[in-house]
């Protein structure tokens, strides 16, 4: 009888450990994830986005699927609004609205049963649109390059929260006087983000 109880205990413990391991490693093993993020761009450098705007909270969506071991490939969409603070440098309108659609490749590294870190590279097409209410003041397009790292905390049942830290560089299309063109054809930002991830 004792042996049967021991055997049962071992079986139950083994199954539960196995399930727990699967659950805890879900950060790195799930085939698909989807995340929603709020982020704050901290702009810097000698460029119009930094010198003539204040950044507001932005929002992003991102989804990936596992393609090889812990590598994931996906795409996403970010948008944010910048308030114009220096109209002499920009023009007579209130806001510059930013959006970007991008492709991303990341690698999931579980650090413990609950934590994981995810370095990520992405490249996308960005647009900066001048706005005053419903009135448009032109669209400036470009390419966006981003490198960042996510820290994920696995809550339960395939839901986690994360903190995101990204360096974002935009190379923008622009025709202007050569003396000022570098001020208008690029932007640099560190994006601090928080979000929720489903995997």
């Amino acid at each position, binding site marked *: 009888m004792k042996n049967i109880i021991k055997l049962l205990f071992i079986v139950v413990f083994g199954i539960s450990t196995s399930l727990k391991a699967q659950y805890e490693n879900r950060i790195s093993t799930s085939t698909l994830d989807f995340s929603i993020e709020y982020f704050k761009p901290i702009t810097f450098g000698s460029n119009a986005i930094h010198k003539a705007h204040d950044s507001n909270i932005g929002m992003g969506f991102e989804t990936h699927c596992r393609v090889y071991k812990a590598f994931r490939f996906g795409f996403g969409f970010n948008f944010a609004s910048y308030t114009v603070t220096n109209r002499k*440098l920009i023009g007579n309108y209130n806001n510059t609205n930013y959006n970007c659609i991008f492709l991303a490749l990341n690698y999931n590294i579980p650090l413990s049963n609950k934590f994981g870190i995810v370095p990520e590279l992405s490249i996308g097409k960005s647009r900066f649109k001048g706005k005053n209410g419903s009135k448009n003041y032109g669209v400036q397009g470009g390419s966006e390059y981003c490198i960042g790292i996510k820290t994920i905390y696995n809550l339960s049942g395939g839901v986690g929260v994360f903190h995101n830290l990204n360096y974002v560089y935009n190379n923008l299309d622009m025709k202007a006087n050569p003396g000022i063109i570098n001020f208008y054809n690029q932007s640099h930002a560190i994006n601090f983000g928080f979000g929720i991830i489903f995997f």
Partner: protein
Amino acid sequence: MKKIIISALTALVLISCGIEYNGEERLRVLLKIQDNDLNALEGIEVQIDNLVDSYNETISIGHTKSDGTLDVVFPATESDSARYNIEFKDPNNLFASYRISNIKKTDFNNYQLILDPQTLYRYSDLVNLQITRNQINSHRYLGSTNIIGMKYLSDIDFQNGTELPNYSTNTFFKVFKNQTIILEYAIQDRSTQPYTIESFSVPIEINEEDVTYTIDL
């Protein structure tokens, strides 16, 4: 439902109207503003409007720095037929405002326009010359008027440096104090066929006060 559709269509039409801009093309204007003693003027408001067809919008506003300079950048219009006006206004109302009109996109060299130093004159240096009509005969009309003397130009055509006409050009002039100006005018008599036109030239003494000159018709 009908009202909603009409409102939506109206909003759509309003949104689609107006001047279109190219966000990937920026124009730059560099200028300096001074008084007639060549002192730099700080805080002068500079407003740049663009005109495309019947639309007119202010695309840039700035104020001069302590050295009188201003450097502004703004998005270009999509249309190459756009005209730009630059208006200079003193928020303290010590200096008379004026405007440079009819600047074309082709006047920008490599997306940049550098204006010659602009001189603002104090209101205290100027007086108004008002021409009024004393209608004695109903068939006589005031034709063209012109003054020869130091006239303050309030709206200058960038293309040729002349004053652009406006509704009061014929009968209202801002002129500098302490001078004698010559007023030239023509009177048209429509009682005969063809009409007859008489030309006149009269000197008017301008001192420290506004002047009203009456023409008998």
